[in-house]
């Protein structure tokens, strides 16, 4: 009786072993595995624990306050997708600050005929906004701001959000009836009026300890609609910012790219 039980147990072990060997032998020689490839941030931010989105010099479309909207959007993105602590501070009216600084610099001193030209206001073009960039070279100003907030990384820059219209060749499908009354679809090309928006953010990263510019990220995004479509400026702004944000985040925080690879054996 005992021997019988032992024999059965042995037999079942052998069957399992053979099954295992057979399974291994029949296993496919490859299989896909999901992987997450980590991408390190572009900037080495090990010296910073906090980030101040100070504000932006903005211009172009008057329906959207690009300074307020950009600062709010970048803050909310960094709060959820970065290890840096986002400082909750008032958004600075940088265009006004730049104008004040410019006026102070333009005042003639003894024997001096005057400083730089006054800054254009309102800002309507790339040329206008680029003149404000001297503000970002004022290391004393940024150093003082950094001291105020205990030496964080400062994110600032310029944001130009402009309307744009153009005419372009578009292909259309036109339905026609032929001589026998049959429906026919023809391709027709012609000029069509289009309108849309251009977003040109120039994001600048400043070391709050020294006031020095560390890095600048420039991008330009455009979205066009048919002239009949009435698209609100704010929704176009957010649509364009959606394209800019991945690049901004990859500068400040590590990211993971999901994919699949094939493991072999």
């Amino acid at each position, binding site marked *: 009786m005992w021997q019988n039980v032992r024999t059965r147990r042995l037999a079942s072990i052998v069957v399992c*072993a053979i099954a295992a060997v057979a399974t291994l032998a029949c296993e496919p020689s490859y*299989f896909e595995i999901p992987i997450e*490839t*980590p991408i390190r941030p572009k900037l080495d931010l090990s010296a910073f624990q906090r980030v101040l989105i100070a504000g932006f010099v903005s211009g172009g479309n008057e329906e959207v306050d690009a300074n307020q909207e950009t600062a709010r959007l970048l803050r909310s993105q960094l709060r959820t997708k970065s290890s840096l602590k986002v400082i909750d501070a008032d958004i600075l009216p940088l265009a006004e600050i730049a104008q004040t600084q410019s006026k102070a610099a333009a005042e003639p001193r003894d024997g001096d005929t005057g400083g730089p030209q006054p800054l254009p206001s309102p800002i309507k073009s790339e040329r206008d906004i680029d003149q404000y960039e001297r503000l970002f070279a004022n290391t004393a100003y940024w150093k003082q701001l950094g001291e105020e907030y205990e030496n964080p990384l400062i994110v600032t820059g310029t944001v130009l959000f402009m309307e744009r219209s153009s005419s372009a060749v578009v292909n259309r499908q036109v339905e026609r009836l032929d001589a026998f009354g049959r429906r026919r679809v023809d391709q027709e090309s012609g000029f069509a009026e289009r309108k849309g928006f251009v977003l040109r953010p120039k994001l600048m990263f400043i070391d709050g300890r020294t006031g020095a510019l560390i890095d600048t990220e420039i991008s330009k995004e455009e979205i066009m609609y048919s002239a009949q479509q009435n698209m609100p400026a704010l929704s176009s702004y957010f649509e364009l910012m959606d394209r800019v944000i991945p690049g901004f985040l990859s500068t400040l925080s590590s990211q993971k*790219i999901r*994919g699949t690879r094939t*493991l*072999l054996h």
Partner: protein
Amino acid sequence: MPCQDESQVAIVEFIDAMVKISRALPAVAIIALVSTALVAAADPHTDARAQVMFGNNVAQRGLWREAIYRWEKAVEIDPTYAAAYNNLAIGYEHEGEFGKADRAYQKAMTLEPKNQQIRQNYEQFKEINDRVAERANP
């Protein structure tokens, strides 16, 4: 009836021998399997393959460091094992060690230039690697 008695004894002895053999069969099978495994263990490719299989298994459970350790052992045992280099490259890629991943993929492709799966893995890796390099040196 002595003759009938003898044949009966012979039959009983035969049945007894058969029962003994049948009892010994599982043990014989196990010995055969163990000896096969021992023979296999002596073969470096089989040993490397065992390391790769183990690495694959733990990688599927998310234990990538352990998987890398196994695949590193596999290429140490058998430096001509393209699959092990391929898997090692994937492991390095997962850990963000792009330089090591690139070298491991290159080695795998040198060993098996016609392997489409290795090539496809490398193409996907290269796309990310190029993007990272471009960002570092615009």
